[in-house]
């Protein structure tokens, strides 16, 4: 696990979020859990800054990004969006599903769409979003979100395994 440069190779799983802001940490938790699965060929990384994605995924063809989202669905609900270079640009309203997280008005949506314009978006990018209940400072995951981690890990693991097969 690294928070900067992941080794190049198989699918990359990136957990985004802050470890100290309630459910914002769920992406980090899931990336760590996926790493613990020891899936052959799967690399993992964690980071707080969405702008780092443009460097983190350099050289990777397939990427899974896990992050907390707020869409109005029940806390813990899991949303999966395919946004890779093979897909059309998503309209701004689609990105509402990923919330407004990020650093100083530069969130996941901006990172992905900027990478697409610059030709730096991996061919396949899957965003796995976990509906958050709270981003309160200094708090742990909410019970609903904590309860969804195993399901999310299974989904991310399945997507990554599928990516390994597709890469192979």
């Amino acid at each position, binding site marked *: 696990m690294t928070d900067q440069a992941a080794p190049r190779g198989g699918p990359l799983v990136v957990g985004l979020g802050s470890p100290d802001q309630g459910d914002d940490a769920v992406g980090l938790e899931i990336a760590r859990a996926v790493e613990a699965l020891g899936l052959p060929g799967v690399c993992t990384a964690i980071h707080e800054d969405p702008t780092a994605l443009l460097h983190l995924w350099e050289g990777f063809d397939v990427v899974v990004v896990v992050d907390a989202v707020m869409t109005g669905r029940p806390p813990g609900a899991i949303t999966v969006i395919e946004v890779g270079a093979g897909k059309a640009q998503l309209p701004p309203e689609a990105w509402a599903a990923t919330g407004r997280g990020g650093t*100083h008005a530069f969130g996941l949506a901006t990172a992905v769409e900027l990478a697409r314009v*610059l030709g730096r978006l991996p061919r396949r990018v899957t965003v796995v979003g976990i509906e958050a209940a709270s981003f309160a400072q200094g708090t742990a995951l909410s019970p609903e979100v904590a309860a969804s981690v195993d399901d999310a890990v299974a989904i991310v693991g399945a997507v990554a395994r599928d990516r390994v097969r597709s890469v192979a």
Partner: protein
Amino acid sequence: MTHQLKDGSQVLQVGMLARVEGEGGMHIEIKDGVVESVKLNIFEPPRFYEAFLRGRKYTEPPDITARICGICPVAYQSASTEAIEAIAGAVTTPEIQAMRRLLYCGEWIESHSLHIFMLHAPDFLGYDSVIEMAADYGPVVEMALRLKKAGNDLMELVGGRAIHPVNVKVGGFYRMPTKAQMLALRPALERGLEEAFETVKLVSTFDFPDMEQPYEYVALRHPDYYAIERGTVVSTSGVTFPVSEFPKHIKEFHVEHSNALHAKFDDTMYMVGPLARYTLNFHQLSDRCKEAALAAGLGETCRNQFKSIIVRAVELAYAFEEALRIIDGWKDGAAPSVPVGPAKGEGMGASEAPRGIIFHRYVTDENGIIEDAQIVPPTSQNQPSIELDLKTAAQKWVDMDDHALTHLCEHAIRNYDPCISCATHFLDLRIKRS
């Protein structure tokens, strides 16, 4: 979006002002061609950090306050550590101060490169966002990403994290990075320095609306260097005082339309930020930075807030220079911190956040428990000048159509790189004509 109301007045509304941090609103009323009222409505709820700090240990403010903002956490950490150390009478070493300045250079590089290219340049080049801009200016945006990454990497090395550093403590750091680790960043910093000077040249070619404001400028001044991590307070009217006298000169007050406190300096409106720093401390910039600034069309002072993008670019270059200077002069072996025990008293600290002075004040009991805390961030202090800039701009260009005037007003707000999250977060901008 334009609405015609039943009373005949006209409301122009932007549902959310993009490329600023935080949520607030702007209401401009124009009657018979005269701008009658401008209000920056910050309706993000108060975040109560000052209240959270009461009852906490004196060692906790650097970690707690760093969470207030994802783009200027070092500003909070620097001001809070200085304030707590002042209570205990602790004196840090030159090495600790140098490392604090190096960490702060990382924050300036992160913040300025993000704002110059991702948030502000689209205003000048006629794009709604950096995504659209990237289609035509791909190499420029790629350069911006490299600059930002250089800042992130410096923050990660010195601070332990790119966003919310965890290596800062009262008295210094938990550990010092090694010279070898720092030298590994040198190639990227050298490239960043040259690209920062390219940035100065690039932004100097933009078209700048002609609008100068006679505000009182307030900034920190360091005895030896262009102030970043600490200094004494200086102003364009010649008033100079130590940070410990900040509350005597800067008074916060509440206005009904904002959840962020406004402030006055000796009962007058004032401004903090890059223009204030540049105007007050131009003489402390490096010769190369001075030459680049003058070649870019700046004078030794700057009163056109639209040109803040050039000043930020000069400061970006300066931050790279300073980072390289500190790294090159570093010798391993310095103690990472000095001991700071609990003490009863009141202490104050201030630093130059990328968008202006941030001030912290703490009162502790004999066990070092915080009894009172006060945080004055730069965007709060700049609310009145943002409003007056908007009023001046709206009046000066009142004959523009609503779409163009709305865009100009948004641009005028982004000149300040406002961080509403810091000030208390979304702007709903309305122009009403009747």
